[in-house]
């Protein structure tokens, strides 16, 4: 049974209602007008800014000439997950941020929405079926560990280069964070899975199995020429304070996954979100939309150090999330065996911003309590690379896998890696770029060595 047959692919009615799309699609007239605004820059800065280097003006020009299939293929050629990227990319700091029209006192071209327009048409037309799967047949065999964007992009490119690829994913549905972790008003699981099906249609095989337990790593090494690690990050960090395991405490990623997949999941009363990143904000906004009366986001530094994009922060304020700075939790308070509130201590910042972020110092005796019904810690994700990397002699760089950036090659030449487990947690598009670069490098590696020419 393919994931498409499972009930999950049907969007949840509640989510369709509570999470209308943040950036609704353009209709064809609006897309045409917008496409015609593009200047068709030479060596366009939007293309350079895109981690996957989609040829932006070329795909936009094709929209303006009515060549929608050509437009979609231009996008997919550089970025096989063009559909999800068109929805989740922080375009304001990528392509649209680089658009020259900013300096002409005009709005930048709405590149993200134009890309979405082309991709939506491509999928609506059932066009994936006609996508040229294999550019040239080859004989390599590659295993990709993890079923998220990095592996999908790597596998798709390897297929197009003619190799055989299998993706091993320990989750019931592939797609990684695209399926389970992106805010519902940006990307629905159904769209993520449409892309997974597209990658499958290129001839990529999927196995629902955990590598290291169900499938021993030695087996992969025996059966495959090269192995790509795209396992993303692990569970979210724990707060490490008393009361953390009480009912009513759920970390941001699990919270997002729950509401995206469970129709009966509801939120009431007061919610406290702890953390200042994009995921904290996604969770806080979702809590509002799911029915929370009040949502308080508490961050131990200030607005200036918050590791979220400023447009996410501003959006969250519009959603009605209240922000509190300079406080960190010391205890989750219980009543009747459930969460009743969070006890915080105020903090101050020490040291300058030069180089790193300022140090957080608790202010002695400055305790206060925020009563609440639900606590959502959002402290970032840990990494579970230890044993795999150690046993295979793969060098780490801090807590990430160390790679050669242009190729994704690790210190063990049979292993390549990309995505969050390498970059520490960036965007979907960064993972796609990593995966594709690795696939091209692996293709070169697997090329039969030309005979030495004598004479």
């Amino acid at each position, binding site marked *: 049974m393919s994931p498409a047959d499972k009930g999950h692919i049907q969007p949840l009615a509640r989510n369709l209602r509570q999470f209308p799309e943040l950036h609704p699609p353009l209709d064809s007239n609006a897309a045409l007008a917008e496409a015609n605004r593009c200047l068709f820059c*030479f060596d366009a800065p939007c293309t350079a800014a895109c981690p996957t280097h989609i040829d932006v003006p070329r795909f936009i020009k094709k929209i303006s000439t009515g060549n929608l299939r050509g437009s979609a293929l231009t996008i997919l050629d550089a970025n096989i997950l063009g559909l999800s990227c068109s929805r989740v990319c922080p375009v304001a700091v990528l392509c649209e941020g680089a658009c020259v029209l900013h*300096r002409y006192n005009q709005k930048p071209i709405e590149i993200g929405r134009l890309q979405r327009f082309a991709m939506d048409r491509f999928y609506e037309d059932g066009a994936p079926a006609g996508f040229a799967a294999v550019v040239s047949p080859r004989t390599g065999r590659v295993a990709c560990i993890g079923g998220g964007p990095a592996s999908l992009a790597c596998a798709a490119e390897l297929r197009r280069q003619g190799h055989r690829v299998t993706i091993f994913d320990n989750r019931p549905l592939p797609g990684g964070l695209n399926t389970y972790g992106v805010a519902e008003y940006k990307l629905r699981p159904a769209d993520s899975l449409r892309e997974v099906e597209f990658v499958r249609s290129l001839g990529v095989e999927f196995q629902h199995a955990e590598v290291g337990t169900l499938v021993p790593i030695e087996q992969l090494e025996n059966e495959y020429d090269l192995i790509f690690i795209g396992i993303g990050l692990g569970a979210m960090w724990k707060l490490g304070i008393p009361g953390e395991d009480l009912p009513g405490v759920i970390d941001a990623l699990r919270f997002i996954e729950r509401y995206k997949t469970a129709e009966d999941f509801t939120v009431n009363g007061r919610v406290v979100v702890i953390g200042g990143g994009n995921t904290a904000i996604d969770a806080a906004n979702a809590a509002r939309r799911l029915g929370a009366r009040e949502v308080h986001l508490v961050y131990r530094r200030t607005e200036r150090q918050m590791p979220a994009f400023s447009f996410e922060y501003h959006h969250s304020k519009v959603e009605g999330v209240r922000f509190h700075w300079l406080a960190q939790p010391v205890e989750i308070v219980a009543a009747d065996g459930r969460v009743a509130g969070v006890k915080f201590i105020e903090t101050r910042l020490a040291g300058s911003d030069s180089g790193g972020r300022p140090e957080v110092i608790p202010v002695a005796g400055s305790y206060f309590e925020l009563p609440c019904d639900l606590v959502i810690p959002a402290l970032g994700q840990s990494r579970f690379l230890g044993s795999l990397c150690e046993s295979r002699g793969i060098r780490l760089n801090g807590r990430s896998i160390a790679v050669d950036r242009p190729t994704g090659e690790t210190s063990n030449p049979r292993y390549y890696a990309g995505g969050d487990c390498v970059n520490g947690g960036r965007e979907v598009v960064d993972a796609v770029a990593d995966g594709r670069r690795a696939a091209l490098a692996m293709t070169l590696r697997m090329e039969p060595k030309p005979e030495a020419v004598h004479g």
Partner: protein
Amino acid sequence: MADLNTVFAGAIRTPNPFWLASGPPTNSGEQVMRAFDAGWGGAVWKTIGEPIVNTSSRYSSVDWNGQRMMGLNNIELISDRPIEVNLREIAEVKKRYPRHAVIASLMVESTREAWHDIVKRTEDAGADGLELNFGCPHGMSERGMGAAVGQVPEYSCMITEWVKEVARTPVLVKLTPNVTDIRAVARAARRGGADGLSAINTINSITGIDLDTFTPRPNVGGSSAHGGYCGPAVKPIALHLVQQIASDPEVGLPISGIGGIAGWREAAEFILLGATTLQVCTAAMHYGYRIVEDMADGLSHWMDGKGFRSIADFRGLSLTRITEWKHLNLNYQIVARINRETCIGCDLCYVACWDGAHQCIHLDGEGAKGALPAAMEAASRARISTTPIATLDASRALDGRTPPERIPRVDEAECVGCNLCWLVCPVEGCITMAEVGAGRPSQSWDERTAAGG
């Protein structure tokens, strides 16, 4: 305040030079009266003759870069209403709008009697002038009228003579552009006694083809026929043809300029090349009669700014500045200069110069000669870029200035001053074409060959 009152051919008075051209906007008295209310100074009635039957559909257009109707094509014939109805309505309009100009456009079969008859009846109805439609390029020409007359100087001369035998009001001949030399017909009209010329009528065209059915547009039950092209796209052609007849000493007739006029700027251009009045069809079909307000307003403000008190003050001023190529000064030299403050770094000038001109714009800062375009693109595609991490990477955020490496440099020693970069630059005033080596004596091709150089 500029005075827009105009007199055409000594006898047709009009409160401003803006007339509606013969076509759908002047099909009936009701329309013409609303047009006069909106500010039009005159109207050339939709061509009157034995009523015809039109096809459905009749129009097709060329859209460009999201703009509708850059050019319009039609296969419509002359008026489909009885002659007496048109004449009755002309009389009615003249009675109610005595200060506005009503010119009757006429087309009948090529016999002396037919022309005598229609001229007399039209003038009796009160028309201020007559326009002989020798221009309609489709349909009517198959029946020996319209362009079939306008393409043969002798016929044009002969029919103009017939008309002049009885006409009491000024007679304008409307010229077709579908000839190799428009001056031949213009001179013939002059010989026949015409008092003025209208130019141009529409240009033979096929606007496009439906790529699903393979039927050219407009589609009439699965077939099409060539039509006449007009609208903004034809202005340059019309300006040239107006200049041709305005500069020809053997023509010497007042001109009503037509073709792609949609605003006061085009109006000023036609007048600078010798037109006395202006006629508009497509722009009124596109946006309605209301466009005349800005035509008059904009022209007056421009005239005030230049110190022109009347249309006559600047009519034909640009004619002396059009010469033959062989008289142009070969020692005049300009080069492109880029304003680094306003450049947005689109690098369109760079690729245009490399692929379409003289390879003298470089993207190398002030350093060595630049790489070829393909190498430049390949280099930036090979660069690894990542999404900035919020706050940590904030320093990377663009500060709203163009990255210096994207601002092109013109190699002035190699620049031939062709204008291409200046034409493609999307930022008004960012590239200027500056004169260099001023003061060198002027020398034309003619002079150079005469000097044996």
